[in-house]
């Protein structure tokens, strides 16, 4: 039984039909990687799955129910990592996610540092820490490894594997060949 099912989704960006007839299904512990050229609609699909962008057609179901009917409820099961880090320069790293979550991404040493002093890669790790700390079942990740070095990418992959091992689900757009076992790929 699939927990999340998308049937014939279509999404507009402005007046342009970016996606049509997109279907997939995902069960607990599943990973779906979105691939495609620039402008193929990977980010748009992620935003539509989060409910940030409305669907022009199709249905998104969670446990058989319309997932987008109750947006606050849908939001409570989604951990979102957009292409922007959503990091506030004036807040410290610890104020963003708490000290415990920083350890997962190797940022404990920077806990009391204002985020404006972090590098781009560290800010991305901080954003990843927020996803990990959310403890929500569905991670929606838009190019999550942007700006990360090889060690940080490996650390991120470990966090993903741990999440799905606990029954979580991940949908991520990526240009890289992420080494995630049993990941499905959706070409857009």
């Amino acid at each position, binding site marked *: 039984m699939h927990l999340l099912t998308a049937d014939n989704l279509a999404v507009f960006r402005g007046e342009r039909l970016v996606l049509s007839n997109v279907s997939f299904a995902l069960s607990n512990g599943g990973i779906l990687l979105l691939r495609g050229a620039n402008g193929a609609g990977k980010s748009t699909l992620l935003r539509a799955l989060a409910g940030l962008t409305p669907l022009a057609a199709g249905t998104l179901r969670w446990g058989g129910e319309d997932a987008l009917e109750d947006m606050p409820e849908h939001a409570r099961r989604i951990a979102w990592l957009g292409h922007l880090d959503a990091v*506030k320069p004036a807040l410290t790293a610890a104020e963003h996610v708490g000290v415990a979550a920083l350890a997962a991404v190797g940022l404990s040493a920077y806990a009391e540092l204002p985020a404006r002093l972090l590098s781009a890669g560290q800010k991305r790790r901080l954003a990843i820490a927020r996803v990990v700390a959310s403890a929500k079942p569905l991670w929606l990740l838009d190019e999550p490894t942007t700006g990360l070095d090889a060690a940080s990418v490996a650390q991120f992959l470990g966090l993903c594997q741990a999440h799905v091992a606990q029954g979580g689900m991940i949908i991520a757009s990526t240009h890289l060949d992420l080494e995630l076992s049993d990941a499905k790929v959706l070409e857009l």
Partner: protein
Amino acid sequence: MIALIGRELRLSLRHGADTAAALLFFIIAGTLFPFALGPGPTTLSAIAAGVVWVCALLAALLPLDRLFGADFEDGTLDLLLLSGLPAYGVAFAKTLVHWLTTGLPLLLIAGPLAVMLRLPAEKVGLLLLTLTPGTMLLSLLGTLAAAITLGARSTNVLMPLITLPLMIPTLIFGAAAVTSPHPAAALYMLGAMLLAALPLAPLAAGAALRAAAE
């Protein structure tokens, strides 16, 4: 919502210059009138309430472009909309923080400014009584305007063009309550407008936020 309000207040404290700029603008704009019109108590006391009201209105506009602008630019708006709070809840939290960091300080400074402008002492309390719902209305309508103009190219121009006409009824009844011999009716009107804006402005602002996020 409490966590969001706490975080926004912390951010406001870290960006204290924004709040200070609004307060300094309020004081400086108010003190320009005696220089332009002369220090005569008759003239000043006649216009003091109106001057304080207009200056408060203009000062409250200053922080509005950053109310959602920074969140929109750095991706935080998406997180806010996915926080589990309904969009109108996010808008209400932002409104409350705007009032706490701008409206309330303006209210505290309005008394001394009014005295400096020779407003009769017995009218100062009434002025503050009108400014209490008045500044709340400024925050509610200002938040709505900030949400509507989010993502627009000329936010700085659009913001006052949308907010100022919306604020005209508040300004009329607020200033009238202080100068009228029978202030009760104007105060009731301010209260009624606040009661109407309290649910409606966040609802409309929430819808505008969702539209901007699309």
